């Protein structure tokens, strides 16, 4: 396998082609599509980023985090605040111009970075804890972030933050979908990724092999939070309005359900589960208008319980979708490696 170098052209060209295809789709088709369906496609993309990044923490590193929505809200609020600030200071800048796009991207990056820093700060003390304690403490942090946002008046507090410039669109959302999948995929092929896996499989053995488990966990946590922040930023600049109520623990549970359904430790599983659950949510919305009852969370939770009782590894377990398709070339590779 000579194409392992992350920034080597050989490693990247497939991913670049995928991004290019998405942009072509964006430029050619996006205006002609039914806006409702288009909305669903965008939200599916954002959910993919969230699910894949949470999978890095919950699936690959085996640390059960329940506060992903908190990091998403940090990224969303931070980037939205920054773009609003910039476009209010310089009203002359066209949001669609190259400068507007650059500002948007750097705001997104800052949002992600802010989320990553908070993920680092959260992770450092709490990742020494295990299993259930970690779950509760991340849940607690998510709630604390929400309560703090509720109390900051400059970003709207409980009223929410309206008037965010419309900057994210299909092209950017799916660029970041590809980037996040690419990052996690390449990472898991690298020694760092192997360290993540070793922490999941057996912490004591990993430590004996010289893996600094706390550091590894915090890394996974910060990277997961980074992409959650990016997803939050994309979400904010698409919906154009943020409300802290949208980032409560139901949102975190929703992302967890995607990860668990797809299989903890399977990137393609997360992608498929994210798309599936976003679509089913809209389908159930029509049912809800018909029956006036919200079935969505009942079905989600039942799915979670039944999944754990009958197929605890989710749809794909730790495998990827192409492991189920017999490809001769890939199996040869595996033998050599």
């Amino acid at each position, binding site marked *: 396998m000579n194409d392992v170098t992350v920034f080597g052209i050989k490693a990247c060209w497939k991913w670049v082609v995928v991004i290019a295809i998405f942009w072509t789709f964006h430029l050619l088709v996006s205006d002609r599509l039914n806006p409702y369906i288009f909305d669903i496609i965008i939200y599916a993309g954002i959910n993919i980023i969230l699910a894949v990044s949470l999978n890095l923490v919950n699936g690959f590193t085996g640390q059960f985090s329940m506060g992903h929505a908190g990091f998403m809200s940090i990224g969303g609020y931070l980037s939205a605040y920054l773009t609003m600030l910039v476009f209010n200071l310089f009203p002359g800048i066209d949001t669609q111009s190259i400068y507007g796009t650059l500002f948007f991207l750097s705001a997104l990056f800052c949002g992600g970075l802010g989320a990553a820093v908070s993920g680092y700060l959260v992770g450092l003390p709490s990742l020494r804890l295990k299993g259930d304690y970690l779950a509760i403490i991340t849940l607690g*942090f998510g709630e604390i972030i929400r309560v703090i946002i509720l109390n900051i008046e400059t970003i709207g507090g409980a009223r929410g933050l309206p008037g965010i410039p419309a900057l994210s669109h299909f092209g950017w959302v799916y660029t970041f979908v590809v980037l996040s999948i690419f990052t996690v995929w390449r990472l898991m092929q690298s020694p760092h990724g192997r360290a993540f896996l070793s922490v999941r499989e057996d912490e004591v053995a990993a430590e004996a092999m010289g893996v600094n488990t706390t550091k590894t966990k915090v890394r996974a946590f910060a990277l997961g939070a980074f992409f959650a922040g990016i997803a939050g930023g994309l979400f904010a600049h698409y919906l154009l309005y943020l409300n802290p109520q949208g980032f409560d623990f139901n949102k975190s549970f929703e992302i967890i359900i995607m990860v668990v359904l797809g299989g903890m430790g399977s990137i393609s599983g997360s992608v498929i589960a994210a798309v599936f659950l976003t679509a089913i949510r809209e389908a159930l919305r029509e049912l809800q208008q018909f029956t006036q009852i919200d*079935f969505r969370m009942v079905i989600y939770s039942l799915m979670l319980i039944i999944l754990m009782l009958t197929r605890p590894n989710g749809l794909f377990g730790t495998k990827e979708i192409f492991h189920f398709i017999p490809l001769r070339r890939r199996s040869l590779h595996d033998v050599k490696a």
Partner: protein
Amino acid sequence: MLEFTQHIINGLSLGSIYALIALGYTMVFGILQLINFAHGDVFMLGAFIGMYSSRYFALDRNPSLGSLFIALGCAMIGCAAIGFCIEKLAYRPLRKSPRINILITAVGVSLFLEFSGQLLFGADPKFFPEIYKPSVNWSIGELVINPLQMIVLATALILMMVLQFIIFKTRLGRAMRAVSFSHEYASLMGIATDKIISSTFMLGSALAGAAGVLVGLVYPKVEPLMGVMPGLKAFVSAVLGGIGNVTGAAVGAITLGLAEEFLVGYWASTYRDALAFGILILILIFKPTGIFGVERIEKV
């Protein structure tokens, strides 16, 4: 000073409600090393059972201590049955699977109870009937004591004493302690561990049900999501007192109730829900075993 005493009384009554819920957490954790996320929702169901049973028996027509006991009894029996079912259907099949799967199941059960509660009862808050109406307000000097809060405190204390009796003076309690020590050895000694675990769930759930009725008495608003926050806070109290420790849970809950009351009274009421998690984080960083907890050596 008057205000201070008032806050102490409020904090004690709030804390005793948290204590009743926290006991269920701590008992289940002690015996299964499992955080029963659904416990807060059992508390919610207790409030609803209390509400519907007092409507069914028309208990608000002659409010008295007797009616309160009927509602309490219904809620406790109902919740014990619910706790039994949860353990039997959701947790028992997973007894041997990895911890994370059980954790996910617990989260799933919790969400299921919350949202099927929304389906069954409707998402809007319901009014809890007045099943006990104090005739006079007790007062010492200028200090006015709400008798309801005293009733809550007394009921909680009595229930906790009963629990203490069950755990330390009965055969069932001895078996529970044995199972929490080691499942295998307990079953070698002829203890039916599954039955003991079931009854632990039932005991804990009954206490949560009682807490539900008591909350309905003091804050007469009942809704399907009311169990989430008290549930999490009760869990924090259990950790604060040293999870697995019954006395610790009660002490932790009273501490948390008082801390919350003082925060709301003297500083910032909007940070109320953040306080519990802040305490949890500090405790887990500095003394993960809690106030009364014993250090456990992790075996490889």
